[in-house]
């Protein structure tokens, strides 16, 4: 083949490519699956699979919370499916743990292998397990000492990474904020991270609930806490599935009732307590609280 024929063939192929590009490029720009529309490198590289990685890193943070003692897909998991650190973050003291997912050794090899990986239940921040430390029959160390050793910071890199990969996952922001403000004393960072979460999940009532806690518990700015929680309550009522999560709702109205009670706004407090009474499983204690507030209201300011 002559050199001229080569050149002609190349020119023809080039022309075909150019013509196709003028047709395909506009189509590609408007295609829903076009990852290049995102400015985020991770979105471009991983696509929707980043959500899987985000979930993996979120679980990794929970595994770190238990110092590596964590069930695999082959082990028995707790029925609730909620992460333990999330339960701790939500203020559930008696959170369900699924403490002894390993059970009794099935054979000598299984018993031998348990020396080579974390096979005792402990939490971050409990420090080294002392010999006199009370240990339950299931091998679980009681979480009654808040040592505040700062070990909780070890979960933060995974939560940060998880939030980067899937910004539309509110619980990542809430958990990270809880540990930042309550155990590490980093209130500013917690608030900043929650605001980042709000930018990705506008009006999310669970993030607003946690933000209100920062104003109430850490900054003692009760007016702003009230505003944020009332906004959260409005958003929760307007959301599509109000029945989805009872616990955050109960915490929200409970916090508002407590705030109004402390601020001597007893009428508002009773209003929120009525809402709490409807959803709370502990109706006796709520009724007792209502009676106390009613008594205070009768006594006057």
């Amino acid at each position, binding site marked *: 083949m002559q050199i001229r024929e080569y050149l002609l063939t190349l020119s023809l192929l080039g022309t075909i490519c150019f013509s196709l590009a003028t047709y395909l490029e506009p189509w590609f720009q408007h295609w829903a699956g076009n990852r290049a529309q995102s400015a985020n490198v991770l979105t471009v590289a991983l696509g929707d699979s980043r959500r899987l990685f985000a979930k993996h890193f979120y679980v990794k943070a929970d595994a770190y919370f238990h110092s*590596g003692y964590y069930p695999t897909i082959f082990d028995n998991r707790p029925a609730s499916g909620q992460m333990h650190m999330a339960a701790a973050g939500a203020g559930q003291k008696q959170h369900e743990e699924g403490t002894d997912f390993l059970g009794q050794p099935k054979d000598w*090899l299984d018993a031998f*292998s348990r020396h080579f990986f974390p096979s005792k239940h402990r939490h971050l921040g409990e420090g080294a397990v002392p010999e006199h430390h009370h240990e339950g029959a299931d091998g679980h160390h009681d979480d009654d000492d808040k040592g505040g050793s700062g070990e909780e910071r070890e979960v933060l890199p995974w939560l940060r990474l998880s939030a980067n990969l899937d910004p539309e996952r509110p619980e990542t922001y809430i958990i990270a904020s809880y540990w930042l403000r309550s155990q590490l004393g980093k209130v500013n960072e917690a608030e900043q991270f929650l605001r980042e979460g709000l930018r990705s999940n506008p009006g999310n009532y669970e993030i607003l609930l946690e933000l209100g806690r920062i104003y109430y518990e850490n900054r003692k700015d009760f007016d702003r806490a009230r505003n944020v929680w009332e906004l959260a309550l409005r958003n929760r009522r307007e959301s599509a599935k109000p029945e989805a999560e009872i616990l955050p709702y109960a915490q929200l109205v409970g916090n508002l009732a407590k705030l109004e009670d402390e601020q001597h706004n007893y009428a508002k407090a009773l209003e929120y307590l009525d809402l709490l009474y409807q959803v709370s499983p502990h109706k006796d204690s709520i009724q007792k609280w209502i009676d106390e507030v009613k008594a205070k209201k009768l006594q006057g300011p």
Partner: protein
Amino acid sequence: MNSAPSLTPSAPLPPETKTGTPTPAGRASTLIAAQFETQAAVRQGSAWTNIQAIAGVVIKELYRRKDFYVLFILTALITLALGSARFFGEDGSVRYLKEICLLLIWIAGLVIAITTTARQIPAERENRTIFPLLAKPVTRQHLVLGKFFGCWLACGLALLVFYFFFGVISAVREHDWSPGAYFQILTLHWFLLGIIVAMTLLGSIVFAAPSSNSTITLLVAVGILLLGRHLNTLALQLAAPAQQIVYAIYFTIPHLELFDVRDLVIHNLGTIPWLIWCGALGYAAAYSAIFLGAACLLFRRKALN
């Protein structure tokens, strides 16, 4: 092949030698026994010299090739880059860094062990250097053992460098140094690589090409590391014939995951009991011996061209 002598040093001596009044016949037997003992010692010495010489060549090959340097620089760069990151203004988080650094070390260790070992015997055959190598007094067993010790020691040297880097990074970030735990993770990792080196040597005799051997060994090793511990749980959920088969596999395979104590080091959970540690090393030595024995046996009858 060296045939064993009919009268070995362990052969029983005439009874008079034990009483202290040797007869002429007993004295002659003692002399013959001593002669054979010397010859056996020389042979044993030369066997060990042969193995050492072959192992030395393999170790030199490791530091002449670029694999180790590339993997080490990659590990160091990734670890240092991640170490420079700060999350929420916290610079005390170190466990994520230890986890990633150890993961990279494990990947690098597996790659070095498998790729270095897989090409040893096929390369000798391909270059036809195996013929002068197997000229007397080097036997095929010496060659297999020499290659094994060479690759294993080379892996050990590489691990020393990797773990020294890991120790420095951990000590700088964590201000804590647990020599016992670090010694255990290093030795357990090294013995694990011993099993993998022996397995790969066996594979290099069974499989035709180094690439297929590397891929299969890597898949088997990673498969055991990920699933080995759970095979018994899986077996309990199966019906009768499948259950026995899976349980048989569970007890037959070398449990490489036993040597993975990374989580204990990452979460500062202290050392494992030293007796258990010795047991694990013995377990690794037994499986390495099994694979080496099989490799020697198969290589005895293997055509070289």
